[in-house]
């Protein structure tokens, strides 16, 4: 059961092999979390993430498999993850959505890649969250934490396919949060700047960057305060507020 400071005892992670999710799970386990369900596509990477979560102190860790390119399978994946959590912990306190694929420059010329990025970053997550929201409503409470991105706030040439999908997911999450008011289920959106993880491997450093641990600490603190949007670093909130006012001609020349 979740507590008044938003700290879960049971978490379902969609994108269980994500580096950011790994850091967040460790931080949650240090507080209250005892049961974790990791959902992902790759058996080996899932096993490695599970081992890390156990080593951090999680008492039950289970694994569910899915492929985010198969949108039709999203509801099944969520159902399986909830069933595993129900078995281990009697319910789901927190759903963390960490699935996503970053598009790189010049990939936008490839329609198949665009479809992949949009499907794994927007269509599958939105579908899965719709199912998760329904199950949490039935349960009578719960939190949904969605890893969005500052990229969703203002588009750039370098990763615009990803950014457009994140913008869709971010807007979807704001709407879902509104739709769930008064049900006991709450949605919180995390908007990190660039973080060194396997997703951003090989990319140059950018302004507004942080670390997986900083994101994890911000999420734990955000659960506690209930902030609808969690910016990491916090200054990203003001920077992106300003960025939206900058004319495109100037924005084009801002590094990032």
């Amino acid at each position, binding site marked *: 059961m979740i507590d*008044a400071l938003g700290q879960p005892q049971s978490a379902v992670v969609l994108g269980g092999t994500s580096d950011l999710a790994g850091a967040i799970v460790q931080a949650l386990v240090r*507080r209250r979390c005892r049961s974790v369900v990791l959902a992902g596509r790759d058996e080996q990477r899932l096993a490695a993430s599970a081992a890390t979560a156990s080593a951090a102190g999680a008492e039950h860790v289970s694994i569910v498999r899915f492929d985010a390119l198969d949108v039709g399978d999203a509801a099944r994946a969520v159902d399986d993850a909830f069933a595993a959590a129900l078995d281990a912990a009697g319910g789901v306190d927190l759903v963390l959505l960490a699935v996503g694929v970053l598009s790189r420059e010049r990939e936008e010329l490839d329609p198949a890649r665009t479809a992949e990025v949009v499907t794994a970053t927007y269509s599958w997550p939105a579908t899965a969250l719709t199912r998760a929201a329904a199950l949490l409503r039935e349960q009578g409470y719960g939190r949904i934490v969605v890893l969005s991105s500052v990229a969703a706030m203002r588009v750039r040439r370098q990763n615009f396919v990803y950014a457009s999908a994140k913008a869709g997911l971010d807007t979807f999450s704001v709407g879902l949060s509104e739709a769930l008011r008064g049900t006991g289920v709450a949605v919180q959106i995390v908007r990190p700047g660039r973080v060194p993880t396997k997703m951003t491997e090989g990319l140059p450093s950018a302004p507004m960057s942080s670390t997986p641990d900083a994101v994890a600490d911000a999420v734990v*603190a955000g659960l506690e305060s209930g902030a609808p949007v969690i910016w990491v670093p916090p200054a990203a909130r003001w920077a992106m507020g300003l960025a939206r006012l900058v004319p495109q001609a100037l924005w084009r020349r801002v590094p990032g």
Partner: protein
Amino acid sequence: MPDASFAPTARLLCGWGRAGATSGLVWTPRHDDEVAELLSKADDPGIIARGLGRSYGDAAQSAGGTVVDTTLLDHVGGVDVHGEVEVGAGTSLDTLVRRTLPQGWFLPVTPGTRQVTVGGAIAADVHGKNHHADGGFARHVTAMTVATPTGVHRVSSTRDPELFWATAGGMGLTGIVTSARIRMLAVSTDRMLVDTDRFFDLDAVMTAMEEGDARYRYSVAWVDCSGSAERTRPGGRRGPKVGRAVLTRGDHAGIEHVPAPEQPRAALAAARVPRPHLRVPRHVPGGLLNRLSIAAFNEAWFRRAPARRKNELQSMWKFFYPLDGVAEWNRLYGPLGFLQYQFAVPPGRGDVVRAAIGTLSSRRIPAFLAVLKRFGPSSPGPLSFPMPGWTLALDIPIGSEGMGRCLDRLDEMVAEAGGRVYLAKDSRLRPDLVTTMYPRLEELRAVRRRVDPRGVLRSDLSRRLDLG
């Protein structure tokens, strides 16, 4: 169900702290047999009683489950010559005292608000300012009727004492109390005779309480946690010290203590129980109560108190219920809500009280006035909170940075000292410390296995802390 008009409504429920709301199906039975029927049909994820929702956390709610609102079980019998009265468990202490005071009977034990039910007072075995003298609420319950999933039992401290005491402080986890017989306290006026003393630091007030509390029926100290020992003001002057305090102690006034011209109004036949005269608006912005506003309030409050006053006549309403004048004052904390941290430690561990106040003030976590009291002997209830020694309670707004970890560390200190956190106030305790703090939890579980073998009596609290 026997009657088609007896139907549930889905509602979002939270405790007095207004955080952590969950949605459940609320039934409001009008008769004891409806309670029994709900219990016999109860299923996953559980069923739990709810009184007036004055517990601060998640004790009286059950996400996705059944919540039994007891407030229509509110019959009040006549007071017999021994001062005993049989009341429905949903009766509020406010209603009860309105009925009995004109005949000279007051509550034997009262929490800081009258807006709690008799069932809630039993389930938390609530304490008043007289715990060191008179024990907890359940000690004044001579018998009660407990409906369980396996049947209805009339119990007392001699008839099925295991169920009686497991229910006293059992947070609703042994069944639903439908009615109780309470031994009231004889009083002759609605006035209190009060001594007030002001202290500039915590050690002084604690010494005064250790030495003098035995001479008074009621005693409580309000401690300012917003000061800081380290802080120096511009110009090098030291700021207010941590833990300055106002101690009020007293007893009921006899009619002879009241000046003759006042006597007709102090006599109980004329007693008027006040109603709230202020109400907090429905929408209060967050952050209204922050470190600064709380410190300013505490400052004003400390300065208003007299340095020393003896035998002052006060109305019992002001003495017992300073907060009941403002309805829904919990809304002042804004949309995020707040929590109350209350713990008890053994007599020799006043250092934990000092450390708790020191920690909160040095980490700049805004805390309103803390309430400090001495407890007398524990009751036989395995989950009853009071234990001989000190108890400290503080209200803290949710959202102040680092509060969660800070309280986790306080939990550890309290557990290490052999103390415990009050479940009726709790919304965030470290679950791994429950069995250390409540070493007799297994006795409650044994009673539960007997009266609730399917384990359907469950609340969000019991799930969060694994009490079942």
